């Protein structure tokens, strides 16, 4: 920071009266109400689940079943994250589900039909994700095609490639060149990382919470006091949750896939919040022109987002193949809308307008749980669409309604 070494010297006394422009209390209150307002949707979902718990009891509050929902939706959530990352960059990527469908085929087909070693299969699948991302990014950023139509077109091509590859039929692995056992096991809810790993994660999450709470503690408290207070608060809350919700029985329910999802989401959160790339991406999405003028290579950033989206979608496809054990045409096609719904939910679950990683994951899971509660509760099948849609709308509108009412 050479510039600031000699600040004192270069600064003219006249320009540095350091009189703050009036920025009174309102902005503080604004920020606070914003934090509250932006978690309202989250609270609304919790309220729904509380309602379910009263209504359905253990049939809904069944840790195993709920974690199974999470496990089963890992591919959808990965696709949602893929959609989210391009949305952060201000673009649509409608090809994510087609990419997943393609790599699902390749993950099994390249082994059983072409006989590639399995590591090569995985590399090939991720390479496909990269290639798809590069093509999409090229179309959108270098040929300036509207992302919606560009990825609609490229999605069609990708799906077409999968149907050419498969001949339009399903692919059922058989014969001597089977996929490795661990790959099959990966898809199973029963294959789980050691409990220690899960507890370690929980510990890290608590630590993060302690840190985050720093923003809430009155600023006049000194460091030690604040830290102590926060630690006690988090520990108490954790104990309550552990005992109240019977967490030890849950903790065994975190499958490898769930674990993988958490790892991926954490990595993406770090990427978006704690790296220069993430910052550049947000800037490019929010105001590409300004970002470019600020010296950010917006094209490369957006291209990077498409590539990352492609890789995540490819990963989702591979995992889908693992959970299914076989592949049918457009296996992931039905995931497109739920994935986008989760991504858009993230703009209200934890934030007021921005797409977030954890909002996507949690929003996606919550929607699944709402639906599950209805099915468990025995709502006639014909009604589920209505109630699901209505719950989504209510949860989302709550935050804005309250915001409007507060004005």
């Amino acid at each position, binding site marked *: 920071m050479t510039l600031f070494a000699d600040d004192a010297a270069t600064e003219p006394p006249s320009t540095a009266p350091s009189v703050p422009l009036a920025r009174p209390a309102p902005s503080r209150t604004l920020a606070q109400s914003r934090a509250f307002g932006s978690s309202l949707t989250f609270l609304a979902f919790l309220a729904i689940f509380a309602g379910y718990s009263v209504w359905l009891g253990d049939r809904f509050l069944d840790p*195993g*079943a709920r974690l*199974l929902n999470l*496990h*089963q939706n890992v*591919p959808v959530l990965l696709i949602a994250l893929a959609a989210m990352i391009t949305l952060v960059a201000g673009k649509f990527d409608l090809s994510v589900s087609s990419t997943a469908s393609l790599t699902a085929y390749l993950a099994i087909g390249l082994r059983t039909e072409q006989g590639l070693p399995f590591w090569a299969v995985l590399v090939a699948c991720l390479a496909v994700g990269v290639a798809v991302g590069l093509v999409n990014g090229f179309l959108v950023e270098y040929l300036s095609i509207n992302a919606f139509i560009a990825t609609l077109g490229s999605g069609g091509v990708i799906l077409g490639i999968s*149907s050419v590859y*498969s*001949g*339009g*039929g*399903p692919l*059922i*692995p*058989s014969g001597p060149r089977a996929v490795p056992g661990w790959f*099959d096991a990966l*898809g*199973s*809810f*029963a294959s789980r990382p050691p409990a220690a790993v899960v507890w370690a994660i929980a510990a890290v999450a608590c630590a993060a919470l302690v840190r985050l709470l720093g923003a809430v503690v009155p600023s006049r408290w000194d460091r030690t006091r604040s830290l102590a207070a926060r630690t006690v608060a988090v520990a108490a809350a954790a104990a309550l949750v552990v005992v109240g919700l019977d967490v030890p029985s849950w903790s065994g329910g975190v499958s490898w896939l769930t674990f993988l999802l958490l790892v991926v989401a954490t990595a993406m959160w770090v990427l978006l919040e704690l790296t220069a790339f993430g910052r550049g991406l947000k800037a490019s999405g929010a105001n590409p022109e300004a970002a470019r003028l600020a010296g950010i290579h917006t094209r490369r950033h957006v291209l990077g987002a498409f590539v990352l989206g492609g890789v995540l979608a490819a990963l989702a496809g591979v995992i*889908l193949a*693992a*959970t*299914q*054990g*076989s*592949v*049918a*045409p*457009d*296996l*992931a*096609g*039905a*995931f497109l809308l739920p994935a986008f719904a989760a991504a858009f939910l993230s703009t209200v679950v934890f934030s007021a307008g921005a797409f977030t990683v954890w909002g996507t994951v949690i929003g996606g899971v919550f929607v699944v749980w709402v639906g599950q509660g209805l*099915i468990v509760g025995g709502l006639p*099948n014909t009604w*589920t669409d209505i109630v699901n849609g209505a719950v989504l709308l209510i949860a989302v509108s709550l935050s804005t309604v309250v915001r409007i009412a507060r004005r």
Partner: protein
Amino acid sequence: GAGSGSGATSGATSGATRLSQDKLMSTAAEKVAAATSLTPTFPVPKAGFEAGTGTIAVIAGGLSAPVHAEQAEVMKKAVTAAGWTVLGPYDGKFSPAVQGGYIDQAIQARANGVLLFAVDVNTIRAAVDRALGAKIVVACAMCTSGDQARAKGVLDVTPDFERQGEDLGWFIVQRSKGAAKVAITVEPAATGVVARTRGLEKVLDQCAGCSYNEIVIPAADSTLPGPPQWTAFLSAHPSGYTDAVAYYDGLTTPMTKTLRESGRTDVTVSSYDADPAVLSLMAKGSAQLGADVASPLDFASWSAVDLVLRSKAGAARWDTTNLPSVLLTGKNIAGFTPPLQPAGDWHKTFTTLWTSS
């Protein structure tokens, strides 16, 4: 996959012997007469057993298809009649990912059995393996799961799809007097369709004066206007074709519609599933409709439930992979009252069996 392009005209493949015209027509008459009998014989289990109690998850291929929704309810009724608990019915949404997910939920809920309706278990292999591994009985009504899956323990309850294709084939041969040119729609992703097509083509291969073309219509495209593949096929072939086969009745309506709108009267559409709308048109004597194949859906659903109960109770199973079906044509349609089922109170037969040891 079984799909060849829509342009590939097949002749006699794999050494199928062609019959002489006389032989062909007499065989056709014989086969059609047998297939159009409205009172086929149903296999009936004899041994009774104590059903006890348990839980069965019912998963339909996709509840948006009326047949699936209806049969899911039939299954539910049967399970309840046996005094068992039902999970579901679940909507498989025609997505293997969703269907497999519900099987995993059944495992998680420690169900004793999984009842599938028209689901291709091969596309959800891993979930089915997990269920079988957890000692859960998996029975599938209206499925051709294949030898591999059956060997693993999947219980199919179904008419012989290949036979249904053959029946339709013989009907077409007879109708055209051995000079049919057939457009066969296929969906290579559906094993049932592939089996029916196999049977159909096997028969047509024996007919020297017949030829056929396959038109691949992926299920996803089957609801688009036309469907586009069919519209394009018609404009590419302004004449020459005598027959078309829709791979299920959901296609029959749009296909006949497109035929009418392009002013074509030279093609007759035959199909499977005995959809009420199609049957009512056929009963009115629509010239555009050839034959339709009816399957004993209700009976299959009840039989599937019976199989699960039997497996749980350790009772001997019976052969359910060759349920009868009926070929419906303009001639016998008047005498047919859906659904296709055994005579008498057969529901009672089952419930009695389930409570006698």
